[in-house]
């Protein structure tokens, strides 16, 4: 760990991004409970370090492809929270006029090109964003988020091969949310879903670098991704990174603290403790971050709730480029 290389501002920015994600998700939980968001969906709580550590290396010109637990990725990538919450509320002011919901959110302005309702579905598309950078020679990169379950999908394996063959500026980020049991989160399955301990072992099969990391340590994520992104930007081709993560419970009250038994892998708790010891996160700064993020999420919730439903005719637009 080379903490000395990471500036204080970067650390605080990472901490703030994680707080923002958790606060936003808890806000969404509240709106689901209140009936303002019309469906339940997968959350990212406990995995914030990965989205924060990855997206800290990306600008709006770099794209991400996301999953069906996308809120952390989208918030970290810089999506406007008002429009994101409005999309979750299925309102016309959402990024996608209320037609995507959480599972298909597209925000080209921030480079968030697709949450995806199909496990592994966004991975081949993300290779297309990387190809576009390669053809333009603009030094941009794409990052493909997927889970350990998706890592078994043929399309993901195919894309690893294709990206390696074409040396695409693409970073594969696998968030393994079942690191001990090798079972799929939320699915009651008896057999293991992976025949290996670390998804990153598969990198060797495609002749690209791969490594596995603790995903609840945001600085470890930040450094691993920094190397992979730099490699991709300089034409060195793709990398497969695996981050072990644990999902933790959120809450409806907007607290960012994890329950006692979950703190050992809560990235916000662990990083907060570290920064307090270092004197980087003073009580004043901490209060400022929490207050500001909470206020921003409250504003996003209000925006989502008060926005209008789409017109019924909207159901028929955007099927084709010219409309209906």
């Amino acid at each position, binding site marked *: 760990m080379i903490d000395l290389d990471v500036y204080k501002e970067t650390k605080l920015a990472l901490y703030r991004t994680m707080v923002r994600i958790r606060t936003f998700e808890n806000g969404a939980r509240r709106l689901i409970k209140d009936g303002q968001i019309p469906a339940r969906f997968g959350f990212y709580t406990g995995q914030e370090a990965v989205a924060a550590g990855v997206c800290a290396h990306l600008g709006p010109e770099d794209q991400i492809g996301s999953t069906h637990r996308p809120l952390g990725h989208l918030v970290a990538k810089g999506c406007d929270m008002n429009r994101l919450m409005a999309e979750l509320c299925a309102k016309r002011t959402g990024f996608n006029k209320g037609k995507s919901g959480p599972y298909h959110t597209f925000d080209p302005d921030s480079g968030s090109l697709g949450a995806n309702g199909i496990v592994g579905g966004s991975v081949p598309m993300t290779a297309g964003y990387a190809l576009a950078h390669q053809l333009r020679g603009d030094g941009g990169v794409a990052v493909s988020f997927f889970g350990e379950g998706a890592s078994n999908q043929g399309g993901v394996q195919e*894309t690893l091969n294709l990206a390696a063959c074409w040396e695409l500026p693409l970073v594969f980020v696998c968030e393994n949310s079942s690191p001990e049991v090798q079972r799929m989160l939320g699915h009651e399955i008896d057999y293991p879903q992976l025949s290996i301990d670390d998804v990153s072992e598969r990198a060797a099969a495609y002749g690209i670098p791969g490594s596995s990391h603790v995903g609840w340590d945001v600085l470890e994520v930040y450094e691993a991704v920094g190397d992979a992104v730099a490699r991709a930007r300089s034409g060195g081709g793709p990398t497969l990174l695996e981050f072990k993560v644990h999902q933790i419970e959120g809450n409806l009250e907007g607290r960012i603290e994890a329950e006692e038994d979950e703190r050992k892998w809560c990235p916000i708790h662990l990083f907060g403790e570290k920064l307090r010891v270092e004197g980087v996160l003073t009580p004043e700064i901490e209060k400022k971050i929490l207050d500001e993020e909470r206020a921003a999420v409250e504003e996003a919730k209000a925006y989502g709730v008060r926005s209008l439903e789409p017109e019924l005719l909207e159901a028929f637009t955007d099927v084709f480029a010219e409309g209906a």
Partner: protein
Amino acid sequence: MSVREITYGEALNEAHALEMERDPSIIVFGENVSSSWRAATKGLKERFGRERVRDAPITETAFIGMGVGAAIAGFRPVVEIMLVDFGLVAMDQILNQMAKSPYMSGGAVKVPMTLRAIYGAGTSSGATHSESLYSLFAHMPGLKVAIPSNPYDAKGLLISSIRDDGPVVFMEHRLLGRMKGEVPEGTYTVPFGVANLVREGTDVTVVATGRMVGMAIEATDFLKQKVSVEVIDPRTIVPLDEETILNSLKKTGRLVVVDEDYERCGFSAEVAAIAAEKGFSSLTAPVSRVATPNVPLPFNPVLESHLLPDREKIVRAINGVMA
């Protein structure tokens, strides 16, 4: 603009080359696109470079999905899957991501991508190398489907496909590749959703697609002294020029649909449904369909031709609606 005769495959090649010359955002990749024995793409790599024309590994899910992504990122990929049957291994990328991303994004992204696929039976190639399947793509909201039946349309429809701001599945019949016809040298487009009135007639309307257009004309010629047949080639089945079909029905009152795809829930059923819903008062006889029966296509050439629409079956259907 001088007119000379070239093949369907050469016409496709010209469409690629003219458009790639005009627009550097057009890229071509897929299976064997740099091969010298693929008429549609032969020579493109030499002319436009291996950056823009790339052979992909045989992984349709990865490279079709990559086409979707590159399209969203501002390129105009023309992606080739060799045979349409191979697209079946990549249905998520075609039917979910390619077709629906524009809608799901509320128009925030566009997918200006052309997916080229060779289709069709008649070469004793068996059940996974002979299908038509365009009805499958037409079923999914968001995809346009073009099926050129001759060299002129092949070139003009491909240019229209490449210029379309949304995804197009472009279907080329494997037995039409060497078909010759008059094709202008320069750039021109054949618009989507505008049917070609191939033959005018007054007794029966025959709607046929792709290679079936030629078969329908053979049947028409065979019946020339007895029945006046109007042959309509929709050219694109999405969007479909319903108006031309319904106007023809007003004149003839009788409809035969000739479709190489499977009969059940297919294009022929769609045209029959349109006639029943919107042209019922014009009809003076039940609609007749000549389509491939709902069985996989067998390897045996006698069995295969037993199943496929042909001139005799079309003649029988026309005589049937005239009876």
